[in-house]
């Protein structure tokens, strides 16, 4: 049975970068699927708890009734199952290792620093965090130069693993820029990344997948207010 004959569902959320990146992966591979919006912020559904009993988190891809959890693992699974169409990961073992290294860095080191920005109590703390975020972007600039080899994306001519993972954070990058009154992707400091960002945001894979910035900002304000009132 071809993978396309089997039902595919994605439990996710419009606001979550981890869910957005899976949608991008499915779009890139033209995989028809049912998107099920889960309220990941409060009151998790029985369906989500059954599909991901260990972490109770979105996204979860359900393929032939089998759940696959953790966004990076889901992307690798999509790449391995739907082999017609563009590859998400490179085929060369060293380039695959490099792609896995940078996606792990982005998720485990860089983005958690971004989240510290909203907890920064004063201007000094904010400046320290912004400094760390920019240091990370400078490292990612060097990674872009190395991985792209002069082409448009980290994946070369085509959008790939690192593009999708870093790109999935754009909505939140814009929210933090507008809330913090700063510019993170700067054409002077990180010209490669700034150019990449423009190209990525106009790529077909992100169409209809990215939340509207105003909607995301509203969501962010609501979550922040809820945190303050429950503290």
């Amino acid at each position, binding site marked *: 049975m071809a993978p396309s004959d089997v039902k595919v569902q994605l439990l996710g959320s419009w606001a979550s970068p981890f869910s957005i990146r899976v949608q991008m992966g499915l779009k890139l591979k033209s995989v028809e699927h049912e998107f099920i919006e889960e309220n990941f912020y409060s009151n998790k559904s029985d369906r989500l708890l059954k599909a991901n009993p*260990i972490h109770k988190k979105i996204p979860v891809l359900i*393929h032939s009734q089998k759940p*696959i959890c953790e966004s990076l693992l889901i992307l690798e699974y999509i790449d*391995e*199952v739907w082999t017609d169409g563009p590859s998400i990961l490179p085929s060369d073992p*060293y380039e*695959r*290792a490099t792609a896995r*290294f940078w996606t792990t860095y982005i998720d485990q080191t860089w983005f958690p620093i971004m989240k510290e920005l909203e907890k920064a109590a004063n201007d000094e703390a904010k400046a320290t965090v912004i400094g760390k975020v920019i240091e990370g972007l400078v490292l990612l600039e060097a990674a872009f130069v190395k991985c792209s080899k002069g082409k448009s994306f980290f994946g070369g001519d085509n959008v790939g693993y690192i593009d999708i993972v870093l790109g999935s954070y754009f909505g939140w990058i814009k929210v933090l820029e507008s809330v913090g009154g700063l510019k993170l992707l700067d054409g002077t400091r990180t010209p490669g990344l700034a150019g990449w960002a423009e190209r990525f945001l106009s790529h077909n894979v992100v169409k209809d997948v990215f939340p509207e910035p105003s909607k995301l900002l509203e969501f962010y304000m609501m979550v922040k207010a809820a945190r303050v009132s429950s503290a």
Partner: protein
Amino acid sequence: MATRDVKLLGTWSCPYVNRVQLALKLKSIEYKFIEDNPYNRSDILVKNNPVLKKIPVLIHGNKSVCESLVIVQYIDDAWPIGPSLLPSDAYDRALARFWATYTDDNWYPLIKMLRQAEGKEEKEAIIAKLTQGLIVLEDAFVICGKGKDYFGGENIGYIDIVLGSSLAWLRVTEIVVGVQLLDHTRTPGLAKWAERVISNDVFKDVLPETKKLLELHEKIQAFIKSST
């Protein structure tokens, strides 16, 4: 494929390094082990892992690969001859990666936390989390092992390497804290699996001896005490 220079920067006592050694050994890959002092990082480490400055680092020819899970998968990809470390089925592969990440992010850090915990209440809370995690891993063993000896089935695989590399420090922690974490009554499948793993020749060659690790633990404790 021509055999090129393979070097591993690491330290004998680090489970993240041990798992890379296990992978290299399972694939019969010859390599040079370069001991790196965890308290005084060498230039060669900083040059080959400038972003995170951590061991292990695999240097294959002129290429450096960092992060233990990335390295183990690289070894499986770059040396396709010899036993596969990851399963061939895509779903089984996703499961293997899931449990490896669970081990590293949710379970293994608790072992060091337990050794460092002060006070009975703090220790008991961590022990509860650790034992709950082992129960979860017992279920994973049943699903992934499918009744065979290892998580990888008949042969040692990815989860066996990742979880197995934690057994040395798990044993030391049990001794130091005076608690049995891996228990035949609570998690019989996993307890038997652990016995099989530590008596396996490949693991015996790589995992540090309990006595040596205990000595290291005591040295570290003495150092911490003298500097506070």
